[in-house]
């Protein structure tokens, strides 16, 4: 922290400011809610959240467990990383499983080549929140990811059905967050709302955070669909003509394998990725998340039904 501060002007760098803001938000949640949980996807944004939680609460343990909603179709590298990282931190991991929701008949699996478990996650998440009695869920969403998010508050209120109502948001003033809720209601809290993808990568570089290998250029079998490259796996049924071929790719997000596309890239280190992103011409979600492409208002529709 001290290293990047100008000693004469006493100016914080933009990363220092964003970091301090996020730490403040996490501590407010811990202080004002009884049962918070930190949602961890294994992706870079939630890896940053873990680092921020260390900065907010060490040398004590986190005042909340870490929860992963596992679609069962995740990249194996990400699951391996998740287990190792949480163990290193000595924190408690809760896994909410979409497979279990399917087995219990809570949701019905989609079928066909475009089947994805992405939509099913909503039910699994809400069930897990109810089961554990969580009243606040910290997540790594950012306002620059999608246009609907630009208007969402840092503390986002959900009714008993986990639904977001963009018209009934509380005004958020200064750094005075109002985390009060009634029984049965929950809040979603986004400490890195104001970060951009580039900020996240710069922070990963500055803090030397380890990321799952799929974020860096590697060889794998992929196939092309709708102008995007998907990892060939047992989870995705390929259409005729979607023949897999080897390519050097990296992933910009680590969602479910069925809807996360990779980009051709030679960037094998954090610095190379930062350089590539600084020059990039396509937004993260537009490029690599099939779930957002379905309709113009895709994200907004899913948020209304409780999606993160």
């Amino acid at each position, binding site marked *: 922290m001290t290293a990047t501060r100008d000693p004469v002007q006493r100016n914080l760098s933009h990363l220092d*400011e964003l970091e301090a803001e996020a730490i403040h938000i996490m501590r407010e949640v811990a202080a004002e809610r009884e049962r918070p949980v930190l949602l961890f996807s294994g992706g870079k944004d939630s890896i940053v959240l873990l680092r921020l939680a260390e900065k907010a609460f060490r040398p004590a343990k986190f005042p909340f467990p870490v929860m992963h909603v596992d679609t069962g179709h995740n990249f194996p590298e990400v699951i391996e990383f998740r287990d190792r990282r949480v163990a290193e931190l000595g924190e408690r991991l809760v896994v909410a499983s979409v497979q279990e929701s399917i087995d219990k008949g809570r949701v019905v699996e989609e079928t066909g080549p475009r089947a994805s478990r992405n939509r099913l996650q909503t039910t699994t998440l809400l069930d897990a929140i109810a089961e554990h009695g969580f009243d606040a869920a910290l997540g790594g969403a950012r306002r620059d990811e999608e246009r609907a998010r630009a208007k969402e508050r840092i503390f986002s209120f959900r009714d008993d059905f986990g639904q977001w109502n963009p018209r009934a948001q509380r005004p958020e003033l200064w750094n005075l967050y109002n985390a009060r809720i009634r029984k049965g209601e929950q809040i979603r809290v986004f400490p890195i709302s104001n970060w951009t993808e580039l900020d996240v990568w710069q922070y990963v570089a500055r803090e030397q955070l380890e990321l799952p290998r799929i974020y860096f250029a590697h060889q794998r079998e992929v196939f092309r669909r709708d102008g995007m490259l998907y990892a060939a796996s047992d989870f995705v049924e390929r259409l005729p003509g979607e023949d897999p071929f080897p390519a050097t790719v990296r992933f910009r997000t680590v969602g479910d394998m069925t809807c996360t596309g990779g980009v051709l890239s030679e960037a094998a280190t954090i610095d190379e990725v930062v350089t590539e992103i600084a020059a990039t011409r396509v937004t993260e979600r537009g490029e690599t998340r099939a779930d957002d492409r379905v309709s113009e208002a895709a994200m907004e529709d899913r948020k209304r039904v409780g999606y993160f």
Partner: protein
Amino acid sequence: MATSEQMLHSALLRLVTAGSVDDGKSTLIGRLLYDTKQILADQLEHIEDASRRRGNDYVDLALLTDGLRAEREQGITIDVAYRSFVTPRRRFQLADAPGHVQYTRNMVTGASTADLAVILVDARKGVVEQTRRHSYIAAMLELPHVVFAVNKMDLVDYSEERFDEIARDLAGLAARLGLHDPHTIPISALKGDNVVDRGDGMPWYGGTTLLEHLETVEIAGDRNLEDRRFPVQWVIRPQAAEFHDYRGYAGQVASGVWRPGDEVVVLPAGLRSRVGAIDAAGEELADAVPGQSVTIRLADDVDVARGDLLADPECPPVVARELLARVCWMSERPLTPRARLLVKQTTRTVPALVDELVSVVEIETLEERPAPEQLVLNDLALVRLRLAEPVAVDPYAVNRATGAFILVDEATNDTIGAGMVVEAS
């Protein structure tokens, strides 16, 4: 594009934009993003499509800032939207507050975290009621910097005379309201003149473009570096043998520069101690400055909890049970004298009673009308509050961090107002 090294060191400027409907705010923001090359291929494709569908013959940059479905249907912005952009010199965080009358509360919200306000003025109309309202809010929230962007200069033939006339009116308004660091810049958001690039419409204008101004405005001195204030958010007490005696007070420095050895008074109780150490991420810091989130350990074993304020005993804040404050009322339900509500100030929440509605501001004239019967949504008023428990506060004009509070409805839990301390006792 800046090197990553440069950008790691660039500061963050938070700005809020305000203007009446159709003054061109969306176009201006779109222009800023477009000319600073923040628009990515898929976003551009998206607005080109949408422009075509609307039958426009040009790419409507305003569509870039268009948000939720409801607004798209109504063709109007309804809420505060936050957006980031970056240039080689600075990282910007922009709060976009919509213009129509009933959304005063949105501008107050957007302005509360801002270092700078950009207020749009239509060159054809000059200073209108909304200009006064937005300027009043910028003054009330003590924004350290204000820029009036006189837009649509292309529609007044880029007239220097017209600009000078408006600039004079604005200077009068700024002086009357006590705006900090006001600047006036003639622009055309549609054509791009003086937004990012100079353009050739106004060779008579010798000042900076809007972006140059945003990139160079000096923000290092905006924070209060004098009066040490540290609201305690959270007490860190590890349940581990190796940290058996560790007791750290976690929080974000509100003001002042903190160093080990500094004398401390714990308020409201009044206990005394000294700073033992300042921790951040497992390291001990030599000092901590406003805005930083750190953990302070005290030299003595004193009783400190969330909601307490650590301060410099040489210049302590007022420990108050009565506040005279500027309030922006944000609820559909009117506020009447004797109403009970909660005040959240720094990390402390206390019950309060409305003792008196002293006056409300008439925006048309900027005059104060005394003793209103009630406050309605978007009213800006002077209010006297009595608190059930003491809080440690400073006047907002001296300290934005310890002088600000929100009002919360105990029954609905909604945030129903924003307050700024004028006097405390």
